[in-house]
């Protein structure tokens, strides 16, 4: 009887523990498809990458050193426009 009670007790603890583990596991918000096919991958790339209207600054032929800008500006007789950010404006966020 003692052995039965002990085994029963252990079973209850085990089931309880399993239930708690199940409750603690967060439900994923992101249902990643089992099969990431080439089509699904292409669709995701299209959604993730900048779309029309985003990254308009990309249409500008930015130089990336002030020295190169000075040389060009001196040659063309123009002022320099410097877009300076902490985190490169063309490559951060």
């Amino acid at each position, binding site marked *: 009887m003692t052995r039965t009670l002990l085994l029963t007790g252990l079973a209850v603890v085990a089931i309880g523990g399993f239930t708690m583990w199940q409750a603690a596991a967060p439900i994923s918000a992101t249902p990643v498809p089992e099969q990431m096919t080439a089509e699904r991958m292409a669709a*995701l790339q299209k959604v993730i990458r900048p779309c029309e209207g985003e990254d308009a600054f990309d249409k500008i*032929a930015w130089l990336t050193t002030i020295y190169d800008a000075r040389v060009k500006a001196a040659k063309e*007789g123009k*002022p320099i426009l*410097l877009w300076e950010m902490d985190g490169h404006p063309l490559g951060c966020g």
Partner: protein
Amino acid sequence: MSTFADPEVLKLTQTDFVPVSTDDWYTRRRQDSEGEFFRKVADQSPRKGLNGATRQGIYVFTADGELLAFKNNGGDAGDMKKVFALAKAKFDKLPEARRKPGGVTVPAAGKPDANYLRVLPEDGIVLKVHGRILQAKAEAFVKGTCDFTGGDQASRDYCWITADEKKSLIPPKAELGFCYDLPAKIALRLARFHLIDNTRGEPEFWKKEHVRTNKITLTVTAVQDDAIELRLDGDVKLESGEKLGYEPKLRGDLRYIPSKKAFDRFDIVALGDYRGHTTYTPGSREGRTPFGIAFGLADTTKAGERIAPQGLRDRDPYYGRD
């Protein structure tokens, strides 16, 4: 939306000025002619950089270093147009000798400060990396929405792989079905520095101990006369406590051309739950939400696609030497 999205701002930037863009983290610190010149210009603005403070902003100046106008980043197109008008008016009043083409002589650049120089890896691979918040819709994903202004836009960064690391990607056996691990240095770099939410500002990068799972493999899917196609599969778990984590699955298609010793395709997508944010990326969505990242080959003929990865400010961790 960027001020440069305004059609008139875009046009004026291209026609009336020489546009240049740099990372202030480097430029304000450089102890060479580039840094000295920049500080000389910035000291004429409100950005004096006291105690090493940021000097970021929009500067308009002459080739010989006279500041014509300054504004802080942000604002709208109207503010930018005012700056343009002010700068143009001041420029037009300068003596002709300083305005005319060839009027100013720019001295040679001199030796760059090696501490703040980042050189594109010769014969390596440069990937363009975009991230975006997503939401599930039916069986697909669409752009997500959030309260943080601009937080729904695609982020951007670059990933650098050296020539030696590129060689390590080539399969030891060009046999259909041959499967091998993505070389550890590259796998760790992707996980720590590129599987990250940088849509709302500069993120803190994952430390090594935050990389709980990083199983990424390559499988040979086709072998032709001069092309080896590879499929990339990955399962990554990144976590820093309960409140910050990313658990993406990765899928990619790569193609190596032996005669060119180059990859002409390097597409990877990462998709999974993201939770939390770091100090300079506030405003994340509540709970676990879908976040996607797309990698692809950059166009290094453009100067703007040759800039250093954000994570390369500290070279040793980025190149796996920490």
